[in-house]
């Protein structure tokens, strides 16, 4: 479809750009103390974008001369991103960390970042892949360092920039090798060109795939590209940490799946048969090992943390590892499980971080100590945190269990050669139980009965309820999510 025709399908993105522009103008209008109101304009823009996604024709097309995909797969991830953004936007005005800053730009940056992620989940062109990742990265660098007066926030931004720049450099190198081998930037054409290469190109191809994987891996914090994660997550404002741990991660998985699927499999059939041609490298095993290392490192290091926020940072690495487990299978079930898991993960992980925000608002701390006896004083907070912690552990009847269940089911289905992966995966969730339970222990097992009970701000309470209910209900009745994922995957753009 040519550029002009494509515009008709580009409404959600237009709305986001418009939102950013309106927000910039409104920011000029508001006083410093009122600047949080920009957030409401952005919120309205996101609602409009979601409506636009909803009313768009449910077709499978490629836009802008095959450089952007328009399919249910992209729509799925866009909705996930909007959902995550929505919760963050609602909670942000109630975070004490941001109280001392003018927050207009904060919301504007979030809008731009979401725009970048929209492109990321639908990129079908090497240039688009690179540009969209850069848009997301650069806005997140600024957001991570948003607390100018806080040393750790500055540190986090700087680390993020260095790692981000380095890994996107690597990725760019990988992309250019791919371009050099095939002479085109369009993913579909690359695939057919790769099919005609002989084995003399194998080393270049392997190198290129590894470098590109490094770029994507950095976005979803796979070990060994994860080193930025704990420091950035710890230093960034907690709202941004929560956002980074969900939305860009989802977008990262989307681009990883789309890229590797479009370029390195033979289209149509979702099978593991043609996993990067015959480069002679055992890719599934390699990815499986990466996944095992990622989850194990995330879990083991999370055990030793004293800050809940940092613990959650490592736990999010572990969760990336769980999701990665289903990728090497390259089966329909594997992708299905990853997407389902992302939905469940969105609710539980955002919820856990928002509880941290509420605790920090109250105690000014985010260490385990700050949680001591909190279940007795703020029973509501304790209860929802219990739901999120058990959900993150993956215990029934919570959403996290269903997510893990589908992941493990996909792995087991792939056959006995992957059983070891499943066994390591489940044992890892036992390890994770220990540190999630530490939060529960601090909240309930320590401390005393309190006569006066307190609750977080009303809006925070509402958001927490909105997150806790799906985290519980999807553990018992998840058919709607399963159907949604199923439909999104059915019309996944495989080729033209």
């Amino acid at each position, binding site marked *: 479809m040519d550029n002009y025709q494509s515009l008709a399908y580009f409404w959600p993105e237009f709305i986001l750009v418009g939102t950013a522009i309106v927000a910039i103008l409104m920011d000029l209008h508001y006083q410093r103390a009122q600047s949080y109101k920009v957030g409401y304009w952005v919120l309205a823009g996101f609602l409009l974008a979601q409506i636009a996604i909803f009313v768009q024709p449910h077709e499978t097309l490629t836009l802008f001369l095959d450089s952007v995909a328009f399919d249910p797969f992209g729509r799925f991830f866009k909705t996930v991103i909007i959902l995550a953004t929505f919760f963050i936007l609602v909670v942000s005005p109630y975070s004490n960390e941001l109280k001392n800053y003018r927050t207009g730009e904060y919301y504007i940056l979030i809008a731009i970042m979401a725009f970048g992620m929209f492109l990321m989940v639908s990129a079908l062109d090497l240039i688009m892949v690179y540009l969209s990742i850069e848009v997301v990265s650069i806005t997140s660098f600024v957001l991570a360092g948003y607390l100018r007066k806080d040393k750790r926030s500055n540190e986090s931004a700087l680390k993020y920039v260095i790692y981000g720049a380095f890994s996107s450099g690597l990725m760019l190198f990988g992309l250019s090798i791919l371009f050099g081998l095939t002479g085109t930037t369009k993913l579909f054409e690359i695939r057919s060109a790769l099919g005609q290469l002989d084995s003399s190109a194998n080393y270049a191809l392997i190198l290129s795939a590894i470098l590109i994987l490094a770029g994507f891996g950095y976005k979803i914090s796979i070990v060994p590209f994860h080193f930025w994660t704990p420091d950035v997550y710890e230093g960034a404002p907690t709202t941004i940490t929560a956002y980074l741990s969900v939305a860009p991660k989802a977008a990262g998985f989307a681009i990883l799946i789309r890229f590797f699927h479009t370029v390195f499999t033979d289209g149509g059939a979702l099978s593991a048969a043609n996993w990067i041609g015959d480069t002679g490298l055992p890719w599934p095993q390699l990815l499986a090992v990466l996944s095992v290392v990622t989850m194990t490192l995330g879990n083991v290091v999370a055990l030793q943390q004293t800050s809940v926020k940092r613990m959650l940072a490592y736990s999010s690495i572990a969760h990336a590892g769980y999701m990665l487990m289903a990728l090497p299978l390259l089966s329909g079930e594997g992708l299905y499980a990853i997407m389902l898991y992302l939905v469940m993960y969105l609710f539980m992980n955002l919820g856990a971080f928002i509880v941290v925000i509420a605790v920090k608002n109250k105690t000014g701390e985010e260490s385990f100590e700050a949680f001591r006896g909190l279940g*007795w004083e703020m029973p509501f907070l304790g209860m929802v945190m219990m739901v999120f912690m*058990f959900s993150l552990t993956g*215990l*029934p*009847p919570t959403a996290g*269990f269903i997510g893990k*269940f589908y992941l*493990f*089911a996909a792995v*087991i*289905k792939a056959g*006995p050669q992957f*059983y070891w992966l*499943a*066994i390591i995966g*489940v*044992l890892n*969730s*036992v390890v994770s*139980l*220990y540190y999630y*339970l530490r939060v*529960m*222990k601090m909240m*309930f*097992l320590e401390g005393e*009965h309190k006569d006066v009970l307190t609750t977080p701000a009303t809006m925070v309470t509402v958001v927490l309820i909105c997150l806790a209910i799906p985290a519980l209900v999807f553990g018992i*009745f*998840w*058919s709607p999510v*399963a*159907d949604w994922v*199923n439909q999104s995957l059915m019309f996944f753009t495989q080729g033209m």
Partner: protein
Amino acid sequence: METHILSWLVWLPIVGMVAIAFIPREKSEVIKIVAAVTTGLQLWLAVMLWLRFDTTTGGMQFMEQAEWIPTFNIAYKLGVDGLSLPMVLLTPLLSFLAIFVSWNIKKAVKGYFALFLLLDTGMIGVFLSMDFFLFYVFWEVMLLPMYFLIGMWGGPQREYAAIKFFLFTLVGSVLMLIAILALYFTCGRTFDIQLLIQTAPEALDGVLWWGISAIKVIWVLLFIGFAIKVPIFPLHTWLPLAHVEAPTAISVILAGILLKMGLYGLLRINYGMLPEAVWWFVGTLAVLGLINVIWGALCALAQTDLKKMVAYSSINHMGYALLGMAAVVAAGSIHGTNIGAAQAGLSGAIFQMFNHGTIAAMLFILVGVIYDRAHHRDINGFGGLAKQMPVYAGVVAVAFFAGLGLPGLSGFISEFMCFVGAFPVFRLIVILSTLGILLNAAYFLWAYQRIFFGKLNEKYKDLPDINGRELFAVVPLAVITLILGVYPRPFLDLIKETVIVIINHVTLYGGSIGPLP
């Protein structure tokens, strides 16, 4: 209601839990009454179920089925047979009595009883689920309230005990999850337990994973999960700690019901779905039973903490049940088709599960009684209490005698049946296990002597005797022990047909086949 009696049994405690959630936390008396009424109703339902239970068939009864997640073939399916009925009776009974045992709880009453009722649903759900996914959900749902009940209301080391319990059980259950999924994908994509029992033996026959028979792999994964719950040596180390640190009522539930889940799981799942592996594993099972018997008894003998002694006696008692379960192979042609022995052993094992439920519950309640008064449980720290607390001494005597397997009390019959069943096949093991009976008598009698005879400890000259509420919790259990000890027939009739079904099923797939690869 008639047709949905099992659903009511499962969900009634949840109704009570929701009700408790809406009661203001100051009204602790109301909360306790709601909890008691809920479990009381559940007990009444269980008795109704028992009265309507058809003892002439070994199959599932009172089946309920509904679609849950059709895309994954997950169903909501409940059913009861002779294997689960004793447990379905025991669970509400002990829950009901445990509510009265925990009447003195002061700390966070609302939370305690709400969690207790959630635990109740989890437990009875495990025994009634006929869908493997549902079974797993209930199996895991139990862990959460148990963690908090031990961790918040337990003794000095409660936090360590709670997390140890949780981690141990979770390791077992996640391995079980892998096994469940492996069964699902190799046996025609179903979680239906009944269907899997029919199809799994055929579907897994000859399947090799890395050169090992798939049957063995799945057996081992499931076995670890269940063995941790039983607990079978050497996976038992969580038990003494958890039982000792838990509040009395929770120790009652742990010993009375949770341990039985492991045995129930082995009989229902392992014996049902992997009958061929029974023949491969049964020798190990008998040896593990022997180790449990001897090790549990020796450890109990060494304890000075009364509760710890009782906890180790549980390990010992579970050993007898394992021996009884191993006896099932006596029905095979290679062991002379001795169906009588197999029947005695398997019935003995199920009977032992029930009896240990009542006896251990009694023992833990009685330990709680003395602990509430003296605030310690050191066996050597008492003395001469028989004069001071005559009624208590009498009840403890009944419980201890039941525990050591005195003829005339129910424990004797079930242990005897286990021995009789296992003897034809595992002669040496059975002979060695009888040593356990001797050791049992030694530690129970020795403890009794130290606590109740001799000179009265001056500190305890004002100790009040057991009160009405506590007697109310113990006497029903003591009566059951006495009746079943003299006249076990009604109980054995209840399980007879199902036992035959299990024996036939296991025999069908073994005895003639060669060793598994």
